[in-house]
């Protein structure tokens, strides 16, 4: 048997969260400043052949209703779960379904911080995007968005989305 010479990361199926039309629901329209919204729990990230993904590439897009102060953020956290049922074995009092989260400034500390979309005031109320890399440890993830932009998020549903692409390690001869 020959040992593999090298390996690479292979993209799996992307999961999209949106207020409608995505694979999963996450309603960010008109989210108030300081408010938080969780999305549906993902399906299992574990591939029957490749196992747990080595990393998740996250693309987060959002917009504010009125120009934010430069450098203000919209935070993204991940609640990990090892159970497929929406409301089971979640940290941070997450329900695993699209809903507001009360006391987010306390409960977000029980989740993993994935990153923050740092807003530019030059982009006014246009869509702003940022990518993050995240290393999962469980099969299921629940995204939580905490609005710290100082503004209400944009009222147009199409301005908000969250895409997570799992990447699996592949060995090559």
């Amino acid at each position, binding site marked *: 048997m020959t040992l593999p010479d090298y390996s690479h990361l292979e993209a799996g199926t992307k999961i999209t969260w949106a207020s409608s039309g995505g694979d999963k629901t996450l309603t960010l329209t*008109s989210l108030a400043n300081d408010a938080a919204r969780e999305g549906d729990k993902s399906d299992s990230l574990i591939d029957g052949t490749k196992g747990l993904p080595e990393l998740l590439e996250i693309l987060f897009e959002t917009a504010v209703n009125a120009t934010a102060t430069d450098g203000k953020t919209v935070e993204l956290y991940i609640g990990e779960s090892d159970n497929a049922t929406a409301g089971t074995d979640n940290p941070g009092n997450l329900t695993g379904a699209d809903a507001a989260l*009360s006391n987010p400034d306390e409960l977000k500390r029980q989740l993993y911080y994935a990153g923050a979309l740092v807003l530019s005031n030059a982009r006014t109320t246009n869509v702003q995007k940022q990518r993050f890399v995240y290393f999962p440890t469980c099969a299921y993830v629940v995204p939580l968005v905490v609005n710290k932009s100082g503004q209400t998020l944009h009222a147009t549903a199409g301005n908000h989305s969250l895409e997570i692409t799992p990447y699996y390690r592949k060995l090559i001869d």
Partner: protein
Amino acid sequence: MSLTPAQEMALKAELGRSEYDGLTESDASDRLHVTTQKAKTVPAELSVSGLLGVISSTGQANLSSHPMLGEIRRDIDNQDRTALGVWISVLTAGGVIDAADATNLSAQLALTTDLTEEVPPRILEAFGGVEGMPNVIDSADFSAAYQEVRG
């Protein structure tokens, strides 16, 4: 957009809270969605200079050499009005300050300041875990729930 029965129930439960008592529909909607201002009266900040400034020069001279000055200073820094009230009695009884100084100092302890406090909108906490609840309640949905609960 119509609410589901569970969402409607959550909205009605929210509007049943005592903090909506006496609010018009419009004010109740603001309470739910908007940061509001509330007047608040708090004790005024005490300072060494402010307190020394209301007592006589004799009282000031006596105090400057008082062995417990450090303790008094600490109670001023801690804004400990109860302890300072006791100090006024003790210092008056000991002849360090006179009755007029004591009256002036007691008046300083009673001073208040009016502040405006920001009250965050209830929407930040009201509907945690209610699946699919919109981040802003549609005015027609709000009105229907308000009329049922408060109308």
